[in-house]
């Protein structure tokens, strides 16, 4: 079972379907805890980029595995307590839009940072829940402003971004308080980059794993461009898509791109060797 469902699921199928994890009560608790510990409860402070220092990159570069492990564990402990993400499927993201209010469309801090993306091109991120009412406390985090949108508008935006090729993720801001519904891609999403390139698990895999049906795959390779996790490649000798299921994050972007219906999502829990690969 997913650690977070185990800890914060409270009987719901997934921890991010448990309404309590979006509730004002938890928002308040996590804010008070963070502020009591001396930290400003600003979401951006806890962002992925801050965990990567030169020290870590040097340890990686020189093969100092002990140090890598030590820094990695520290960074993950902080991320999991304050700000980390998990991949969800499009259907799951749409379901979340109906659970939580308000939803705010905002600019993506990762793309601002890694692409210097102008605000007007960068409204691809969503904030959810009571924190949205106080967005003006952190004008830099919400550069370009914040637009309250209806659940239907949110679904429309998410569906469009999914079509474009962006992966949906939920993010905590003071775990288990869930307040981010992001649309991410490699390499500019800090969650994905940190996880894939540096092995620091700021982003947890989702509850599914993609699988290719060799009878149905025609080798068109359209799915290959969809994978943001280096899990999907094209095998010329088999004339077929190949999915590394141990690397797959279960987002389903390849599934929706396949006209043949050759790729399906299977429940991670149904595969003994993958059930605990997050």
């Amino acid at each position: 079972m997913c650690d977070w469902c185990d800890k914060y699921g409270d009987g719901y199928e997934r921890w991010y379907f448990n309404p309590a994890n979006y509730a004002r009560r938890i928002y308040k608790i996590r804010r008070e805890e963070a502020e009591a510990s001396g930290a400003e409860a600003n979401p951006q402070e806890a962002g992925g980029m801050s965990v990567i220092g030169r020290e870590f990159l040097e340890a990686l570069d020189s093969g100092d595995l002990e140090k890598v492990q030590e820094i990695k564990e520290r960074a993950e402990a902080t991320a999991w307590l304050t700000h980390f993400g998990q991949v969800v499927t499009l259907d799951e993201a749409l379901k979340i839009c109906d659970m939580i209010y308000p939803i705010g469309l905002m600019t993506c801090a990762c793309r601002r940072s890694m692409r210097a993306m102008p605000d007007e091109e960068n409204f691809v991120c969503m904030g959810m829940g009571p924190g949205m009412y106080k967005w003006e406390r952190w004008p830099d985090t919400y550069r370009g402003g914040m637009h309250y949108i209806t659940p239907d508008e949110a679904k429309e935006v998410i569906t469009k971004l999914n079509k474009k090729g962006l992966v949906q993720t939920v993010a905590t801001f003071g775990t288990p308080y869930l307040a981010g519904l992001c649309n991410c891609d490699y390499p500019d999403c800090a969650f994905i980059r940190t996880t894939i390139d540096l092995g620091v698990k700021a982003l947890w895999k989702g509850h599914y794993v993609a699988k290719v049906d060799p009878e149905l795959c025609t080798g068109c390779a359209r799915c290959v461009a969809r994978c943001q996790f280096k899990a999907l490649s094209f095998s010329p000798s088999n004339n077929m898509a190949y999915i590394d299921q141990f690397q797959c994050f279960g987002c389903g972007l390849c599934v929706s791109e396949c006209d043949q219906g050759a790729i399906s999502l299977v429940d991670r829990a149904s595969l003994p060797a993958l059930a605990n690969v997050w």
Partner: protein
Amino acid sequence: MLPTITVDDEKCGGAYFCRKCVVVCPTHVLGLGTSVGVQKYRETDPQYFVVRAVYLNKCSGCMDCVEVCPNNAIQVSFNEGSVT
């Protein structure tokens, strides 16, 4: 091998709008940040935005950022002396 990448903020002067080095980098090493941190109740003025190397481990040493900078503000060097 990790490079040392330095940006002279005074020479740079306009990272928020210029963006050239950030966009040209083939491995997306550079990032935009602010020299004043994140401030409560205040939006940081564009003049305080600076470019810093983030994913040093992905720098190939191609020098595209150095060359694209109109103000000569970026230096990239590897251990055995400066490449530029």
